């Protein structure tokens, strides 16, 4: 009996100590002035520049303390998802087009329209083309920190050596195949598969040119039912592979750093990137690059390329400092000192005066990117962006597409079977979005 009581006491003691230690962790409350958390995914350059802007901001507004939270892309979403589950999202978070809808549909993000109407965030003269990516149902949930577009970069030296004139923005996929074969015939230099780490990005451009979209409007199925275009997408690559002109799959589908990839090594004349990756690609390849839009399909009904917000700043609903968060975003977007630090690392800035202000401060490669985005923004070269990826299943569909490309390139399956299997699989995965 006595033992029982003692045991109970002991258990109680253990429980109390556990609870107190927990309470101690939780009780570290905020100091009297404003403390904000700003989160982003990054790379060393972005982290350094963003931290510098935060420093500048704290100097200008000494009452504000900003705690930065920055990790890599993959770690970021694990962290943010966990924070979302725990109602502990930061005050300002970097957001991505692929995940925005998911967060908005869970009612986690704040509509920023009021802050723009009240000029807390000043976006005067910013074209709707640059903003529409952050809209869901008329509300603005994310403000673009830079504009992006898909492109191909090529090595002009290799083309010159093969005696081929550099491609123009109105080239076709037939031209692409011809160039690839000719480069291989004359220099033995091969071609990388189209967007091999995320082939959906490449095919999306094809399907958009036909007037359709990759996902259906409601997100409950694929946006296309005719497999012909997807088969063609793989057929030209299999054709190049069979001719020996394409880099072999066991070399392609290896996780490598940007300096180790086949373009940097000079084994491919072409690489497929988003425009904000061009600077890094050039730095890794250490050679002059040409930038060109993705080729056209046969009888396109519209341009496939679109201007994409490379990333947003968003304010979560749970933030206790929404006014301060908006003030910070405004500073980040338009303060001359801040924008001179950030330059175009997150993509081409959306505010005209900022773009003009930094044009002369950026290196020649970034100037090339500025010019490319200007070209894409011209009429007829781009079409409006599709709605964000479906709330559920998009990541799984992307992976299925990636694996389908591998199965086909490794010769595990025929193009016809691979495409049919993928379309069936994707439609099954997406069906859970049916309402």
């Amino acid at each position, binding site marked *: 009996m006595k033992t029982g009581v003692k045991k109970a006491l002991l258990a109680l003691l253990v429980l109390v100590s556990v609870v107190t*230690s927990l309470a101690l962790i939780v009780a570290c409350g905020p100091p009297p002035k404003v403390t904000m958390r700003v989160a982003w995914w990054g790379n060393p350059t972005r982290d350094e520049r963003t931290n510098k802007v935060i420093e500048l901001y704290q100097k200008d507004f000494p009452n504000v303390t900003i705690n930065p939270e920055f990790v890599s892309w993959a770690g970021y979403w694990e962290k943010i998802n966990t924070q979302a589950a725990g109602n502990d999202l930061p005050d300002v978070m970097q957001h991505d087009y692929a995940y925005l809808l*998911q967060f908005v549909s869970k009612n986690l993000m704040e509509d920023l329209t009021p802050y723009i109407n009240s000029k807390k965030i000043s976006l005067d003269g910013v074209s709707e083309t640059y903003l529409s990516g952050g809209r869901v149902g008329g509300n603005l949930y994310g403000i673009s920190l830079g504009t992006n577009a898909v492109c191909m970069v090529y090595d002009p030296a290799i083309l010159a050596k093969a005696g081929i004139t550099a491609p123009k923005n109105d080239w076709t996929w037939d031209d692409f195949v011809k160039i690839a074969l000719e480069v291989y015939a004359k220099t033995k230099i091969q071609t990388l598969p189209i967007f091999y780490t995320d082939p959906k990005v490449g095919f999306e451009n094809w399907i958009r040119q036909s007037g359709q979209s990759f996902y259906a409007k409601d997100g409950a199925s694929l946006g296309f039912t005719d497999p012909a275009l997807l088969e063609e997408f793989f057929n030209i690559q299999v054709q190049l592979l069979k001719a020996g002109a394409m880099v072999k*799959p066991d*070399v392609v589908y290896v*996780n490598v750093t940007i300096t*180790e990839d086949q373009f940097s090594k000079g084994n491919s004349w072409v690489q497929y990137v988003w425009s904000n990756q061009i600077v890094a690609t050039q730095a890794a390849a250490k050679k002059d690059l040409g930038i060109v839009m993705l080729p056209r399909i046969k009888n396109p009904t519209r341009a496939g390329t679109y201007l994409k917000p490379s990333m947003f700043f968003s304010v979560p609903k749970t933030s206790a400092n929404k006014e301060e968060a908006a003030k910070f975003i405004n500073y980040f977007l338009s303060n001359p000192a801040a924008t001179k630090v950030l330059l175009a690392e997150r993509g081409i800035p959306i505010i005209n005066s900022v773009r003009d202000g930094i044009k002369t401060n950026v290196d020649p490669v970034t100037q090339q990117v500025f010019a490319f985005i200007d070209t894409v923004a011209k009429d007829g070269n781009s079409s409006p962006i599709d709605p964000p990826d479906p709330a559920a299943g998009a990541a799984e569909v992307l992976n299925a597409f990636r*694996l389908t490309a591998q199965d086909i390139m*490794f010769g595990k399956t025929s193009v016809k079977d691979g495409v049919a299997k993928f379309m069936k699989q994707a439609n099954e995965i997406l069906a859970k979005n049916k309402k």
Partner: protein
Amino acid sequence: MKWRCPLWGHLHINFSVESQMRKKNKFRAVTSHHLAGYMFILPWLFGFFAFTLVPMAASLYFSFTDYDIFAAPVWSGLANFAKMMQDEVFWKSLSVTFIYVFFSVPLRLIFALAIAMLFNRRAKMLRFYQTVYYLPSILGGSIAVAVMWRRLFMSDGALNAVLGILGTPTDISWIGNENTALWTLIILAVWQFGSSMLIFLAGLKQIPESYYEAAEIDGASKITQFFRITLPHLTPVIFFNLVMQIINGFIVFTQAFVVSGGTGDPMNSTLVYSLYVYQRAFKYNEMGYGSALAWVLVLIIGIFTAIVFKSSSSWVYYESKEGQK
């Protein structure tokens, strides 16, 4: 998960001390002595409850639900487990993991034992070499290892360069080939033999020198000595290492993650089970399904550990037990 191994040892000691004490004071169960002990292990207890037991209980619950992190979990009964039966990738990752465990565990143990035998003698700089050979285990899942493995096993890597010199030139990309990619991971596992080696070494040092001397006098060869003296005396250590390595083998994650960048490429041929759990839970936000997958792994590990434990009575030799008989 390496840190669990020393804890195991501690627990074991704890229990034996406690059982002795119980024998002495059968009627004074909780003494101030015990209390002090509990206070000492409080930090560990806190960690165990907060970061192991509670999350495990939660994941057991989630495994019967449909849970996407954002919305509250919805009870779905056995739906997750039924889904597994239809899930091609589940079976694929299971077979990848079984192949990995089946080959990497024995190979690593044999390698660790061989190196430990090499170290079990008096020689200069032994400590230094022991440290050097332990290094790969510390490097574990670092990015440097991923880079190095690529440099070794890419089509223009070091292995093919060596093969070229040996007169069998090839341009196979071992790490990007469906049939060989998993083997590069198995080799990586064997290379990280350090912890098993140290445990073997400790076991070898326990074997009395006099046994070998006696055997030598009787004219037993080195090979006979190994099979008749060394191996039988090592069986408890082999048993321990086997259990630990089987567990470690089934939960392998980091190596596969860094080498393939978390994709399991090419064509899921390096998609070990834990990597698939990670994909489902953290990339597709299917916490319910991910938890269910994780619990199936717990079950599998439990079964294999139980088999090894059951079989141990027929092959593990404890000297102390023999003595008591």
